[in-house]
């Protein structure tokens, strides 16, 4: 395992009766890595494995320079690692019976580098009610609170599972801006999952696609948006065209939809073909519903 790696999963395996994981991915310092996939494909399971909420059965895992073994008792990361990690997990959060004032001393004790003033500033700026119980917060407010708690203790690594779900468009952009500001400090990294592909396209440096517990695709975001394209061709055109740069295809009413990583090639050699810009949505739809070539 290299030195400069924030997270390294190498064939990390986990088996359930109706689902199994075999996941390999790497998150480097200075990078925002996206993890995408349909519901139930293993995104949350990946986060839980990294956080030690569930134990891996095989494979190698390294988080912030520390290896983790397979045994049940060893699955939880060391406290020092968790102090350097900020977490937002879908469908979990602070206890409902607390107010923001209640959780501040709790965070101060857990994180030696907790930035109380910054936390309070964010809560005030984004209008979180300080004296209301968290159970009375909206989904968006709860999410914002988790994000503020994750980014105000000088964490090196953020693990964000659906951090913008429940937020409106404006709030989503505000939170993503905060996360970009968080990344301005050197040596940090984010692993983020989201259903909202638009968020990831403008935010992530690279993405992993997970399907049925396995990583089936990995690419830099710039390349995905620039070089990838969606070809829409009839059956006749499909028969004649060069398929060497087609990654996957899907049968449609009009013929075929094909994903290529060489959009420029087809623009030059097949100018008659309708080519749409590559996007995360198209990637997921084709990889999930199509067949690999």
């Amino acid at each position, binding site marked *: 395992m290299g030195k400069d790696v924030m997270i390294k999963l190498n064939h990390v395996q986990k088996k359930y009766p109706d689902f199994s994981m075999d996941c390999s991915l790497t998150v480097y310092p200075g990078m925002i890595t996206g993890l995408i996939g349909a519901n139930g494909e293993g995104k949350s399971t990946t986060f*839980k494995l990294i*956080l*030690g*909420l*569930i*134990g891996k059965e095989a494979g190698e895992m390294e988080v912030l320079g520390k290896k983790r073994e397979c045994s*049940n*008792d060893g699955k*939880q990361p060391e*406290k*020092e690692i*968790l*102090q350097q*990690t900020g*977490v937002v*997990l879908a*469908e*979990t*959060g*602070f*206890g*409902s*019976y*607390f107010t923001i004032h*209640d959780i501040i*001393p*709790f965070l101060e*004790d*857990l*994180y030696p580098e907790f930035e109380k003033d910054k936390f309070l500033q964010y809560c005030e700026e984004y209008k979180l009610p300080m004296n209301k*119980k968290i*159970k009375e917060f909206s989904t968006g407010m709860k999410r914002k609170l*988790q994000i503020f708690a994750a980014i105000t203790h000088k964490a090196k690594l953020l*693990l964000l599972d659906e951090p913008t779900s429940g937020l409106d468009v404006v709030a989503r952009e505000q939170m993503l801006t905060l996360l970009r500001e968080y990344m301005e400090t050197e040596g940090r990294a984010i692993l983020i999952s989201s259903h909202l592909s638009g968020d990831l396209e403008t935010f992530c440096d690279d993405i992993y696609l997970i399907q049925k517990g396995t990583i089936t695709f990995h690419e830099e975001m710039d390349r995905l948006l620039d070089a990838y394209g969606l070809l829409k061709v009839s059956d006749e055109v499909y028969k004649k065209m060069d398929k060497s740069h087609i990654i996957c295809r899907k049968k449609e009413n009009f013929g075929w939809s094909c994903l290529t990583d060489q959009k420029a090639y087809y623009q030059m050699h097949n100018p008659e073909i309708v080519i749409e810009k590559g996007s995360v949505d198209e990637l997921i739809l084709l990889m999930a519903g199509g067949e690999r070539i």
Partner: protein
Amino acid sequence: MKALLMKDLRTLKNERRLWVSIIGVSVLFGVLFQNWYFMMGYIMFGLSMIARTMYQYDVADQGIVYLMTLPITRKEYVKEKYLLSLMSICIGGILSMILTKIGMLFTPDQADSNQEIFSAFLGILAVALVLQAIIFPVELKYDVSKSRIIILLLVMGIIILFTAFDMLIGAILVAFITIFVDAFGGIFIQHFLGTVLLSAVVVGMIYFSSYRKSVKIMGQKEF
């Protein structure tokens, strides 16, 4: 662990009406039935539920999943719950001893010595700690509804066992206990401190074993 204790004490403060009600109701029972030891037991057993109730609050809304992503070890989590349990039972006991003494001032015919009150406190403390030692690992291992059924079955099992025992060899057992008490009862009364220390060691061992079991259960739990 300090953060966890702060969190639970904050929750207790937010839910103080519940715990004050338990104490209030037990005082009412004590006054109505003129039975101060019943009041003592009610307070101590009532407050012994605090740690388990805090665990149930953590489990609600998946809060415990989030807690486990924070810099808190699972061992610390269990340690804090056992410490909180011990603290709450002892504080409940001290409070109930004070209330019992006050109550007995109004019922001089029922007044007992301080040693007798203290002995009652120790007896209830031992039973409360042993019950906690049995129940908490069950609640940790199984979800709340399943653990309630298991605990109910355990209690029923114990009652059936004792009933069966009593029916089969009850008379022999009573005779044996009578001989034992006649022979050795005086020793326990004369050597009160020794008896207390021996009981403390036994109860302490049970409580510690339960703690170790709970740490193991928590370590293997998947969220």
